[in-house]
């Protein structure tokens, strides 16, 4: 990471509107327009989720439970049945919905602030109960919606608006590697971490999502897919440097790959 913190003005609306992401379209979208920042990884991750639902022909069985973050703005574009939950509370809402609709595909969509800060005990208990739902984490290591603040997954040394000199283990504590933690719980059947910072990463994210959904439809218990997403605005880097920053700063700590398959831990290569 560079020593110089480049400041990008985020206090006022951007002078130029966001560009439409090329090829964002999916049959499960009502519109291709969104208002998230240029370079944001969340629309790409959403597309991967919708593709996985479509590929497995589960659109008419899917119920999504959505947390609160930038991605919440995308929910009016998603042509799936949705429940909007509180910040942090999607796993418990998904639990109640799935118990009453056991044949549905039940997934949650949460950010790192939502899942790992506000609602950490929800996802841990849902996993330990072996709740037959798929929790999806969009992890960019910052509170993007508030403008780039430290979350529980912010890596050591990462600069945010409330860790200006970089996250310091002695002062701010250590990041929580949530996929690693959940993989150790008995009720978790499938746990993986992907990213959307390059084309192979997106393909892998889609593959992991399909495996998680298949695992749920087979009734194998809790499944979890973490997707590292770019947040150049909240990282204070130029848009084009978002993917590189993800690869250089986040991915070495939140390591990509499958951690658990068919209820068994996957040995690292």
């Amino acid at each position, binding site marked *: 990471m560079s020593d110089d913190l480049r400041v990008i003005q985020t206090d006022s609306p951007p002078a130029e509107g966001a560009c439409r992401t090329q090829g964002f379209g999916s049959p499960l979208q009502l519109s291709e327009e969104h208002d998230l920042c240029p370079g944001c990884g969340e629309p790409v991750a959403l597309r991967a989720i919708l593709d996985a639902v479509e590929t497995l022909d589960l659109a008419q069985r899917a*119920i999504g439970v959505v947390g609160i973050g930038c991605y919440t703005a995308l929910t009016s574009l998603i042509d799936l049945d949705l429940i909007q939950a509180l910040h942090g509370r999607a796993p418990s809402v998904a639990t109640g919905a799935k*118990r009453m609709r056991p044949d549905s595909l039940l997934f949650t969509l949460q950010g790192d602030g939502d899942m790992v800060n506000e609602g950490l005990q929800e996802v841990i208990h849902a996993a330990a109960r072996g709740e037959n739902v798929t929790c999806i984490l969009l992890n960019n290591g910052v509170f993007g919606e508030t403008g780039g603040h430290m979350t529980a997954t912010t890596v050591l040394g990462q600069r945010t608006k409330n860790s200006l000199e970089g996250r310091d283990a002695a002062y701010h504590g250590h990041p929580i590697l949530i996929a690693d933690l959940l993989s150790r719980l008995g009720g978790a059947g499938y746990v993986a971490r992907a990213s959307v910072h390059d084309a192979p990463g997106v393909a892998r994210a889609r593959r992991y999502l399909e495996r998680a959904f298949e695992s749920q439809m087979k009734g194998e218990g809790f499944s979890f897919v973490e997707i590292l997403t770019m947040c150049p605005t909240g990282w204070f880097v130029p848009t084009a440097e978002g993917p590189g920053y993800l690869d250089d700063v986040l991915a070495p700590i939140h390591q990509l790959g499958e951690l658990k398959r068919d209820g068994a831990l996957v040995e690292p290569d």
Partner: protein
Amino acid sequence: MSAATSRRLMEGSEAIAEAAIAAGCRFFAGYPMTPFTELLEHLARRLPEEGGTCINAESEIEAIGMAWGAAATGARAATGSTGQGLSLMQESLSEITRAEIPLVVFNMARGQGDYFQATRGGGHGDYRHIVLAPIDASEAVAHTQLAFDLADRWRHPVLVMGDYLLAHTSEAVAVERVAFDPQPSKDWAVDGSLGGSGRSRNLNPIGMEKGSKGIDPDRFWRRLQEKQDRIEAAEPRHETFATEDAELVVVAYGTVARFARYVVQELRAEGAKVGLFRPITLWPFPSEALAACTAGATRVACLEQNAGQMIDDVRLAVLGRAPVVPIGGISTDPAGFGIGRLLDAAVVRGRVEAALAGRELDTGVVV
């Protein structure tokens, strides 16, 4: 079987659990806390027998989250706790109200200190939910079923307020199924069936709608507020006893009203011009009925087991036409479960007599 022969001795918690099942409740989630615990116990035992689910949640926050998800799919769902647990649930309860999801919530409270929490919305934002305050286990059976009916009819949360005595006192109760008018189908509920159709649903508490960016605050808030206005006009419920020529009208609700009713009946039989007004819904508060009942009264006495909460609503209804005096107070036991000296007919009688005579009383705290 007639009501008389189907009666069985059971504690209020069991009667409520059986009534919930009779009403079609098939999902419950809760976290143990006195005096609510037994309701969770009975439902944990009974719901699986009926093909339902009862989850021991990791906290009250997750309990209401789970009930939210279950209710969102169209199932009749409920949660509950005591006042402290209800405090933890308020963020969700507020959002559930705005998402227009029918949910039944039981507060087996410790005394009556949760009146404000129950009737003022309790959490953030502009909302109120329907509150039913049964006087005994038999009425709790009816109110529990009514709560599920009202929740679905209005797509609005309904709170059933009980207490330690209601939850723990065993009485002869018949759990008879109450018949209600047919309800429209729950086409708003998420079942996953409409994905890709262009008509998929979003049960959203912040006014977001499918297919359009942003929120129309004017339409969203007007819709919610107009519904609350309709509930406020349609759903106030109350009971009166001997108020026609009463010089003193006692106002009390819930278990405390049971003591008040006994004492007022006793004093009436002795010739005292005293009557009882009992709000059955705490929200909407039966203000018009109370105003009418107290039009000829020289004094209104508010008996509640707290430092003075419902008295605000009583004063707003009476609007200065007669003095409104408190005759209750905080009254509890060392464990804090709300079993205090006030829950005694002789004590209540003394306080009603003082009000009749226009004598001042120590109120606020009556331990």
